[in-house]
């Protein structure tokens, strides 16, 4: 597969018994791109992402992430990616500082680097007063922004975000996307799943998943043009529920 793609998948499939969660999906992602995975609940977004992260071994097909094979080189993939799951990923019973220190340490940052990163992130997120507070005492929006910052603490090539803004208010969501753009500016590739259609508009390219397959893949503008509609919401409705449309 060509080296110019940071992620490339060919006929990637995952079956759970007789149920096919992800059905022969193929796509390529370029470095620095914000690549969106859209779809209804259960369309296979999370399963696809978990395969790319090395959390789930594919049933068939090929894929490379940062040049590493998703079957055999999962541990090398893990060194080069950041990941933020749907479920909350920080330790609620540790403080802001301790969480940053812990994940920094897990990714092999030195003590000095951890210290610097901690100060940098606390300044960036403007949470000076909360540095020694337990995570469970923070509002959800702060937690999500902190979780994202920690997911890219080791400056990975790619960051995978699985429905990162679930349950967050629109203003915080906007701020969250500003952070995503900043990361993309630093050439971090962003792979994000969502079912918020306004968020879809922020992505560079969108892949629409329906029943485990990629039903459409293009920039938001071209997708709207292709389906002759004005919003991503309408594109989604046309694709996800063709019968009822």
């Amino acid at each position: 597969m060509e080296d110019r793609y940071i992620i490339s998948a060919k006929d990637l499939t995952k079956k759970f018994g007789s149920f096919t969660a992800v059905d022969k999906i193929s796509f390529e992602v370029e470095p620095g791109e914000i690549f969106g995975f859209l779809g209804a609940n259960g369309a296979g977004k999370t399963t696809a992402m978990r395969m790319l992260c090395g959390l789930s071994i594919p049933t068939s097909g090929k894929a490379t992430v940062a040049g590493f094979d998703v079957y055999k080189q999962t541990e090398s993939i893990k060194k080069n990616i950041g990941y933020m799951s749907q479920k909350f990923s920080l330790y609620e019973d540790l403080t802001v500082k301790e969480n940053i220190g812990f994940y920094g340490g897990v990714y092999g940052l030195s003590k000095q680097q951890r210290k610097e990163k901690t100060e940098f992130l606390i300044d960036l997120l403007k949470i000076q007063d909360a540095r020694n507070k337990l995570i469970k005492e923070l509002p959800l929006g702060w937690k999500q922004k902190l979780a994202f910052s920690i997911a890219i603490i080791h400056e990975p090539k790619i960051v995978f975000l699985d429905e990162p803004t679930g349950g967050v208010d629109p203003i915080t969501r906007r701020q969250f996307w500003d952070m995503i753009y900043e990361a993309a500016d630093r050439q971090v590739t962003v792979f994000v799943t969502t079912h918020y259609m306004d968020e879809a508009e922020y992505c560079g390219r969108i892949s629409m998943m329906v029943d485990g397959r990629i039903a459409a893949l293009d920039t938001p503008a071209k997708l709207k043009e292709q389906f002759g509609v004005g919003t991503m919401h309408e594109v989604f409705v046309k694709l996800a529920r063709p019968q009822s449309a």
Partner: protein
Amino acid sequence: MSTIFVLLKKEFLQIFRNRAMIPLIFFMPLFQLLILSNAATYEIKNIKFNVVDLDQSYFSRELVSKFTSSNYFILNKVSFNIEEAEESFKTLDARLVVYIPKDFEKDFRTNGKSEVQFIINAEDASAAGIINNYANSITRQYNADIVTKSSVMPDKTPLLNITYSNWYNPELDYRTYMVPGILVALVTLIGTFLSGMNVVKEKEIGTIEQLNVTPIKKYQFIIGKLLPFWIIGIFELIFGLNLGLFLFDVPLLGSPLLILLLASVYMFVVLAIGLLVSTVTNTQQQAMFIAWFFMVLFMLMGGIFTPVESMPDWAQTIAYFNPIAQFNKAMRMIMLKGSQFKDVLPALNFFIVSGIVLMTLAVWRYRKSE
């Protein structure tokens, strides 16, 4: 190495931030030792009994007074009707009825023998056995007394006199016997429950997924998870042992270092069990349930409360593969008998082999990807 250190730091932060943990670590052994070692005894005192004395003779009154003047029995009721006396069994007011038939004294004086009947409430079989022993020994003593005192048959004085000597626990102090067993139970609980629950908790809150997507290696994760509880377990054993020695005057005839050596390897076995449980469960509830199932089985068949020797053969075979039984036996041997390294070597070997087998199984079952 530094990754492991980072993991350990995080675990200890979380463990000691848990408000229940510090009291648990210090009060659990204290309460267990205080309550269990005093409560769990095979000795029965203050057994209430009823008397049905149809003879109303000097001999019969003497016999009853032997019971009441012993430390074990308290007279509950005197009646002249056996049914009435047995009524007390239902309410548990009495556990023994001493039935003295008419002509008890007369038979003895004329024929040289007579009969007395004990009716024992045997709901609790082991208690019934003990009551039977006490009642028999009192009667035997009484028998010897009247044979000597009464001039009826002076030549029939018993010639054979048995004396007892209890080795390794001369006063038959049950605390001496219980404390080693309770320490075994303590470290076992810490090893299986705390470690297993800790891993499953990460699954429950979803952080394990975050860890699985980092470059942490399997062995680092497992050491990071288990080592804290190994340290706490060993600390608890030392703490509990000191409580036993200084508060309860339990002897320690063998080497404390030998105990530490055995305990170190034993902790490895129980931690492997805890980890194994965590790999087959997804919630703390499930983990708790499975761990309890095995724990109750191991504990009841572990010889802490009832001797393994009195179990049927098949159960004794199972007990051989029960780490609690092995450790309990070895602990008692070292503490009460001063057994040496070579004496407990079979137990040590068993721990090494079973620890390696269980840990391999647990590590194999734990997966970073599926």
